[in-house]
């Protein structure tokens, strides 16, 4: 009879152990950082520009918005963005229809998958929402380093081309306020700053034929002024550096690889054209004229300069990016801020980066990282970018901010 008692006791012990199964929870905390009021300062990436346009969909998937969601479990407060109205989007390219473009979408044209723009909604730019300021996300598509400091950036009286309507639409006082000033309206306790892409990108997207690279010394001066203003109110934040432009599919999609090298315009040669070299880049907008009208394949049609980045232009761009990044790292260290290596992240993506069961590359469309404009990230890539910020912030401030679930966001949508 004693044995049966042991069995009963054993059974009860088993019952006690087996019914509850808990797993150690992740314990979020803010470390030395204070996340109550988080402000994001930056350019297209910060604003959530993607698939060739600014729209609510992209803004909700911007890396600052994703970061703000993750901060909510460690004391983060509300995060307001200058959202476009539902279903509207607008870009910067004039379409044959006369409209500015709207979001690009993948369509099947003649049996091939192509990104096709919809018609944009100008009312996104012409409907002022500055009265709803302050906004926590003051990212502006097209912003360069010095644009953050000047009231001219949002001044519509200067005439088309001399101001940026993407800022004017949410500037607290168009013509008087500055982007930096608007950032400080939220009394931030923490900021992120990602600026400098457009200081080279605008020049690069013109094939080196228009605009100019911001000189690195001037860049450092502008960023120092921005950081001085931000860190007076808010000593805590994160600065991201600039990725190599060559990683973006906008610059790497079209190559002569395997075929006779394409012919490109060159005024310095007797013939006025030459073969493209292995390192030079052809810009994405040239792809149709190359594949359908044989540009670059006939001596009468060498690819025009504005679609090519030659060796000189490329080395100027890369030298500038390296100099910018040296300045940014120095400033981050001097001010005790987290330094986010976007240059490193994009290099990893170019080599192939696995995240939670999927491989991301820099390939156009199939890579899953870059959107249909070849420059800006898909929502999943935005989450990966946000997680890169989180890693750096956790390391710098001893915090335990939870990572975003990359797979919760969408990739490119196929027809």
């Amino acid at each position, binding site marked *: 009879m004693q044995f049966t008692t*042991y*069995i009963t006791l054993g059974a009860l012990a*088993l019952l006690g*152990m087996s019914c509850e*199964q808990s797993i150690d*929870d*992740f314990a979020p905390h803010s470390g030395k950082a204070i996340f109550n009021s988080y402000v994001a300062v930056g350019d297209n990436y910060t604003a959530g520009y993607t698939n060739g346009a600014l729209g609510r969909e992209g803004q909700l998937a911007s890396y600052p918005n994703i970061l703000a969601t993750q901060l909510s479990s460690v004391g983060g407060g509300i995060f307001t963005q200058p959202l476009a109205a539902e279903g509207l989007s607008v870009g910067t390219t004039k379409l044959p229809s006369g409209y500015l473009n709207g979001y690009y979408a993948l369509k099947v044209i003649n049996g091939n998958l192509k990104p096709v723009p919809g018609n944009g909604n100008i009312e996104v730019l012409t409907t002022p929402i500055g009265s709803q300021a302050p906004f926590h996300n003051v990212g502006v598509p097209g912003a360069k380093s010095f644009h953050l400091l000047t009231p001219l950036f949002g001044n519509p009286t200067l005439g088309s081309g001399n101001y940026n309507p993407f800022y004017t639409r949410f500037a607290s006082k168009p013509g008087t306020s500055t982007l930096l000033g608007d950032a400080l309206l939220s009394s931030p306790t923490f900021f992120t700053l990602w600026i400098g892409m457009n200081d080279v990108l605008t020049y690069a997207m013109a094939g080196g034929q228009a605009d100019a690279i911001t000189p690195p010394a001037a860049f450092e001066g502008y960023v120092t002024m921005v950081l001085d203003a931000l860190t007076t109110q808010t000593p805590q934040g994160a600065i991201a550096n600039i990725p190599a432009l060559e990683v973006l599919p906008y610059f790497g999609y079209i190559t002569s690889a395997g075929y006779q090298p394409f012919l490109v315009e060159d005024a310095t040669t007797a013939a006025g054209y030459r073969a493209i070299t292995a390192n030079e880049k052809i810009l994405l907008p040239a792809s149709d004229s190359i594949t359908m009208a044989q540009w670059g394949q006939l001596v009468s049609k060498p690819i025009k300069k504005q679609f090519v980045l030659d060796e000189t232009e490329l080395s100027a761009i890369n030298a500038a990016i390296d100099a910018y990044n040296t300045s940014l790292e120095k400033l981050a260290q001097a001010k005790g801020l987290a330094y986010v290596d976007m240059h490193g992240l994009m290099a990893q993506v170019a080599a192939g980066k696995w995240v939670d069961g999927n491989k991301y590359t820099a390939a156009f469309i199939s890579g899953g990282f870059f959107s249909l404009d070849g420059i800006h990230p898909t929502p999943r890539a935005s989450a990966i970018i946000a997680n890169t910020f989180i890693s750096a912030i956790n390391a710098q401030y001893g915090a335990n901010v939870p*990572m975003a679930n990359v797979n919760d966001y969408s990739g490119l949508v*196929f027809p």
Partner: protein
Amino acid sequence: MRKILSAVGVLFMCAGVLWAEGYQVNLQSSRQTGMGHTGTGLNLGASSIHFNPGALAMMEQNFEVSGGMSAIVLKNTFQKQNALYQSTTDNPISTPFYGYVAGRVTDKLVIGLGVTTPFGNTLNWGNDWDGRFLVQEISLKAIYVQPTLSYKLTDGISIGAGFVAAYGDVSLKKAINFEDAAGEGQAHLTGSTIAYGYNAGVFVQATSDLSVGVSFRSTVNMTMDEGEATFRAPASLSGQLINTAFQSEMPMPGSLTLGTGWQVTDKLLIAADLQYVLWAQYEELAFDFEAATVPDSKSVRNFNNTFVYRLGAEYNASEWLTARVGFTYDSTPISDGYLTPETPGANKINLTAGATFRLSERLTADVSFLYIEALERQGGDDATQFYGKYKSAAFIPGFGLNYSF
């Protein structure tokens, strides 16, 4: 009687889920499950067909038929690394079974036939969970049919061997990284195959109280030549992701087991087994798709050979009742860096209990309870960069019937 049945009732209330390590299933006899699934060194009668074919010739009865099944109630949980995300499986209850029949031909020769399900795995993480690009649902099983011959060399030593014809099938569902307006894509792979192997052993009744056995089960390589892959994908990609056949291979590993039994008193029997499982055969899981437009996939698995330690005790409480208890420590074949949600292996502790009721001169009924708890394991798969903490527990009631004369 009432005390026993109330203990039994209490155990049935809880539902955990536990699974044997890797995809091995150790439920090939309700009696043996009750004592830690020991048995290689014991004279079990018909169920020796599985535990040690060498012992079959020592069968005490002239004829025995035995069969039974278990219900595996299993729950796995996952806590993602560096994130607030948690997930729990919703696994269906799987029901491994066994059946043995054996008869004495001469006083030296016994023949028999066994049907067992020594491998299986059924996990359902759901369609929307974070690891869906690795696995959503996986289900695999193997059924072994083993005709067996056993011969008494002397009064104390017998040998035996069985030929194994195995049926295996697998079904795997996972999300694929292409979405359209309706949602994400999915790949569904299914296949079945027949493969062969053997099981052999030696049994020694060293003294009237002490017995020892050695048995070897060969690896059975399940090679699927005509698996079927179907894809749900966006219409614009359906020309590439076409339904196609695939080839794949997965080993059901063999093992070498040393066992012993000690009749301590005429009521109490203690048994111990040491099993060495040849998991290292499982080096990679590859799918070779016939269609050129569907990229082949290869994942390195690099399983390690492992030891399993078993201890059990059986007590003849009375004429009509025998009670059992047992313990097993099952180490995991999965190395760090290769831990995936489709086989979330960890070192496991098994606790067992059981009983046999003698219903008549010829008929007995067994019940068994197996509780398995996997030690919490932090890690993940380096190749696909998916990391977290895995935990699992299983509760497995079983029963069996035995008829012999």
